[in-house]
Each structure stands twice: as structure tokens, then as C-alpha cells.
């Protein structure tokens, strides 16, 4: 019997951009302090992909997240979807990391776990939108990389994965050896074909919801020392890039001269409707 498969899901805490939650400052820049932190919405798909692997091939699902102690809430949110174990990388030395320094912390954490057969990550985070950290961590670990994955299959005995990728107007079929780093596309969909799989799925979902109530029992917090991190390779000190400034984008000269209409004024709206009917023809 082969060794049990080990999955890692990378998650990130991001500002909650949903209507009613997100708070902007007067100049329209994000008010981070007043906006709650939630799990990056795309990471749910990575968790769904890991759960699919667990249902079909067995194994253990570990969530890894980097952030300050309040980010416990983020990994708890992940466990509500599915996780066996939670790992929070939390240390002032990890703070203000750019993508390369974040990838380094992830590399160390995955190696401390004894490696993974598959790492799943969601496409781009809602705040940074770089999409760089996953591929950089995969490269540092030397894992096969496939991004924009909408479906996948494993052959654990042969140590092979097969994925379907979405590249703009084309599907691309890719296969390669495990261990692999798979980044799910927003269009990712799990597929459960048998009743046995669907029953297992239901059981796992119920289990994890119960676990999530006492998630701290399943949570390990690792600091920089625990990971044996070189302080010049993680956090602010290990980041090649800095954000020099964040400023409002200056308005280019208007390309069109908009007629401004008061949406509450029925007569003005009627005028627009007439214009629309004219323009459409």
C-alpha cells in the first residue's frame, strides 16, 4: 500500500470587497483598517479541488496561510469548506513580504510538512492580484506547475497528474509527474461521478463543519524560527520590491463628454431612453 497522499492548500486573507463590507476613504482608496479580512474568494476553489482529491484518492488536506494571529479566522473559514490540519505562518519577520519573500516562507512550510503530493492554490488574490506567489513557490520547490486548471485527474500509483487548462479561447491538456502545484482557474469545477463519491463528499463536509467549531485543536502556528527562515529571505527584509507610492490615478483628459443625468429625474431619464432608442437603430 502506497503512502497516503498529502495535499496542501494555500490561502490568503484579503479585505472583504463585498458590497456593504468594504470601506473606502474619501479619496476612494481602500480603508484597510475598517474593512474586515476574509479568505480570498478564489481560494475556495482550491479547497474544493483538494476535497475532490481526498474523496477520490484519499489523503490529508493541510491549509497553509501566512498572516498575523487574527488570520486564525481565515484558516477557520477554510476549515468550514474542508481541512484536516491548519498551519498559520505568523511572525513579525514575515510581515510586509512581497511575492518572492512569501514564496520562500511557503517553500519552508511545505518542506517542514515533509513535502506534498499536490499543492492547490486559487488564482490571484482579490487584493494584490499579482498571481505570482504560487508559480514562484512551485519553482522554488521544484514541483511541476500547471495554472488555470479547470479539471484534473490523478494517477497516484504512476505518480502522474493530468489537467485541462483554460488559456483565453483555448483548452490545453497537460500531463506531468507529481509532486505538482496546481492553480485553479475561476472556472474550476469538481466532478463527482459515483454515488460512493457523493456520499463521501457529504460525510467529509459534515465532519469538517464540526471540526471548524474547535479549529484551534487542529491549528499549528509556525514562526520564522520554527521554519528556520533566513531573515534576509522572508518578510520585508527578503522582499526585492517595495510599494513606493499609492496614488489616485490622474484623470486622462475625458475621451467623451458625458452628459450627466440625474437618475431620479423622470423627464431626464425619458430623454435618455429616447436617445437610446434612436442610437440602437
Amino acid at each position, binding site marked *: 500500500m502506497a503512502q497516503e497522499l498529502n495535499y496542501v492548500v494555500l490561502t490568503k486573507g484579503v479585505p472583504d*470587497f463585498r*458590497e*456593504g463590507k468594504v470601506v473606502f476613504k474619501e479619496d*476612494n*482608496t*481602500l480603508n484597510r483598517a475598517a474593512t474586515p479580512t476574509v479568505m480570498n474568494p478564489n481560494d*475556495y476553489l482550491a479547497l474544493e479541488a483538494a476535497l475532490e482529491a481526498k474523496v477520490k484518492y484519499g489523503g490529508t488536506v493541510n491549509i497553509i496561510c501566512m498572516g498575523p494571529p487574527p488570520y486564525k479566522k481565515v484558516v477557520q473559514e477554510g476549515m468550514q469548506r474542508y481541512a484536516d490540519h491548519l498551519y498559520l505562518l505568523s511572525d513579525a519577520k514575515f510581515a510586509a513580504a*512581497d*511575492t*518572492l519573500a512569501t514564496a520562500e516562507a511557503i517553500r519552508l512550510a511545505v518542506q517542514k510538512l515533509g513535502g506534498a503530493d499536490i499543492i492547490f492554490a486559487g488564482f490571484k488574490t482579490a487584493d494584490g*492580484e499579482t*498571481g*505570482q506567489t504560487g*508559480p*514562484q513557490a512551485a*519553482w522554488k520547490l521544484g514541483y*511541476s*506547475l*500547471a*495554472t488555470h486548471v479547470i479539471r484534473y485527474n490523478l494517477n497516484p500509483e504512476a505518480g502522474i497528474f493530468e489537467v485541462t487548462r483554460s*488559456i*483565453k*479561447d483555448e*483548452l*490545453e*491538456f*497537460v*500531463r*506531468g*509527474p507529481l509532486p505538482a502545484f496546481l492553480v485553479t482557474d*475561476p*472556472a474550476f469545477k469538481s466532478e463527482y461521478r459515483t454515488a460512493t463519491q457523493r456520499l463521501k463528499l457529504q460525510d467529509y463536509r459534515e465532519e469538517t463543519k464540526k471540526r471548524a467549531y474547535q479549529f484551534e485543536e487542529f491549528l499549528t502556528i509556525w514562526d520564522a524560527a520554527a521554519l528556520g527562515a533566513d531573515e*534576509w529571505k522572508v518578510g*520585508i*527584509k527578503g522582499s*526585492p*520590491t*517595495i*510599494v513606493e*507610492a*499609492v496614488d489616485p*490615478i490622474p*484623470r486622462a483628459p475625458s*475621451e*467623451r*463628454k*458625458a*452628459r*450627466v*443625468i*440625474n*437618475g*431620479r429625474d423622470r423627464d431626464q*431619464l425619458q430623454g*435618455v*431612453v*429616447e436617445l*437610446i*432608442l434612436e442610437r*440602437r437603430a
Partner: protein
Amino acid sequence: MAEYRDIWVFCEQRNGRFENVSLEMLGEARRLMDKYNVDYNEQESVVAVVLGHNIEHLVKEALGRGADRVYAADHSELKDIRMQPYTKIIANMSRQKDAHKNYDKPRYFLFPATNNGRDLSSTVLAELESGLASDCNKLYIKETTISHRAKTDGTPRVFYRILHMKRPDFSGYEWSTILCLDSPKMEYSPQACSVIPGSFKPLPFQENSKGEIVRYQFDLAQQDLLVTVTGHEKIPNLMDLTGHDVIVSAGRGIGKNPTEGLRLCIELARLLGGEMGLSRGVCTAKYTVEPAFAQYVTEARQIGETGQTVKPKLYIAVGISGAIQHKKGMDQSEFIVAINTDPMVPIHDFADVFIQGDLFEVLPQMIEQIKTGKKLEVVLSGGKV
């Protein structure tokens, strides 16, 4: 101290044709370097990197579009972009000294912000261990005085010849300036970024441009070829929005009540004989909508940089702020009407009519007026006959 020179540009190609962004980057690299060489009295070059199979014509095109030198890696195994061999070859090209290159690493490096280009920029820069900014649309080189906890121990210090990499955020309001700077312990080069397609203008093709061609010699190790592309399939275009005269697009403004927002947009689109489009924000928001409407929330309806580009007679943007990515997919529409509660949103600047108001109040009124207006129209035209 190691030596760094030149600006390198990874020119992505697919099926023997450059992606437009490759030519746009070459044009911008040319402009940046021409100014740089005057400002600093240097003679540094624009270096194009082209990988693929049977790419001789692309090498010529790169030279005619602004490159001084082209590094070309031609091999049947490089036909498709594959992370492992591509990353190794590009990283090795850029850090090995040869007859054409006597410096340690490039000073600057540009990649396209396409699906594959973004991945490749990440792995190449992880291999070169330097800094990378993603999705930039404005670049300039100048010195800068920085006071930073890790980079300068909190005291002001001048950094020279720094590539300022500006990237717009999701909302279209903010612009972050990213810099890649040495730290007291590490030198970081190249300063690299990925570039949003459509941000820069390509140069017109110059026949017979002189330049150097480096046919890069490399070995492919078996272990670098384990991940293979086994096939491609065109996605049937289930929802082609390009041919329609009217498009009504829904944005994040519908978030308060996504089902109702979609219902209103669909109704308006139908009344006007058009189709409904979506902003990227709606496609990625994972809204919970009533089952009957779930089928409408699909990337196949996405308009913008990563979706479709449309040029209808009439484009109605409902609750869309107009981030640059969305703008690219619709700003060639003949007539643009925007509905938004916030008069400061970017779309105000490229709309013909801006209705300031809550879409949940405005759309029902418009729909009602169109319905009654239609009857009127019939009566009137009937009267004429």
C-alpha cells in the same frame, strides 16, 4: 559588484505569431532605452528573447520593431510554452556571459501580462531571485530618494536608474508604484515587471533594420521535459457578443441584490434587441443568485481585457466603475451610457451619457419608459403611413 546592463523583453508568440503585447513592449523598451542612453550617456540595448519552433521570421520582426539584439531559442520541444524548459533557458540566457554579453544579468526585464507570460515572469524571477511587479501599464526610469526600514535602515538614500513600475488596482482608482531596490545584504537585478496588453504603442516595422541575432545553444535535459502539452481544443464560442448592436453589461454595482440586478439587465437588453455582458468583477464575485439566473453568470459573457472586445452601436454599463481592463473591451462602442451612483468613477470619462443614480431605481424606470415608448413609436410610424 556585479554588472547589469540592457533591457530584456520576453516576446511571447503563439503558433508562429507574436502576441500584440510583445510588439507593444518592444516599442516601449525602445523609447525607455533611447531616453536612458541620453540621460545617462550610455549605450545600452533593447534585447528581445524569442522561444519557439521555426521562428526565423519572428527574429526579423523583433529587430524591425525596436530590438538591437535578439536571443532566439528554436527547438521542436519549445513549440508551446512550458514552464520548466522555458524558465531554465531564459534564466540561463540572461545570466551567462557569451560573445554578445559581458555582463552578469539584465538591468530590466519585461514580460507580457498574459496567462502564460505572467507565470513565466514569476518562475524566471524566482530563478534569478529578483523583484517582479505584475500588470503594469506605465514605466519610466529615474533616480529616487527612499527612506525605508529594510532597504535603507530608515535613513534617506538615493537609488539610481530605477525602473518605476506603475500598476492600476482592481477598481481603477489607485495606482501603485513598485520599485525593485537593492538591500544592504542583496543586489536585486533585473528589475522586472509584466505589462498589461494594450498599454503601449508598437513601433512601425522597419525593413532591413540592423541588429544582432544570437542563436542560443542549449541542452534540454530529459527531466525538464516531463510536463508535456498533450493537446489543444478551441473553446466553442458559446456566447459571441461581438456581433450585437446593443449590449447591456452588469458590474459589481448589482452586488446588493445580484439576482434582481441581472434580471433588470437581461430585461433591458432584450427590450433593446441586444445581449447582456458582464464585468470581470461579476464573474469572479461568486454571487449567490437564484438558480434560474446562475446560467447567466459565466465568463463566456465577460467583457474586457480577459474577455471579449465589443464595439456595439450602444453600450449600457450598469454599475460598472470602468477599470482599465474593462475599458479595453468596450471603449470603441459608438455610444456609451453609464449608470452609477458614484459620479467619480472612471467610466464617467469615456461615457456619452452618465446617469447618476441607483441602478435598482433607474433601470425599472427606463424599462417602463421603453415599454410605453415602444407603443408610442408604433402609433407614430403608423400615423406617418
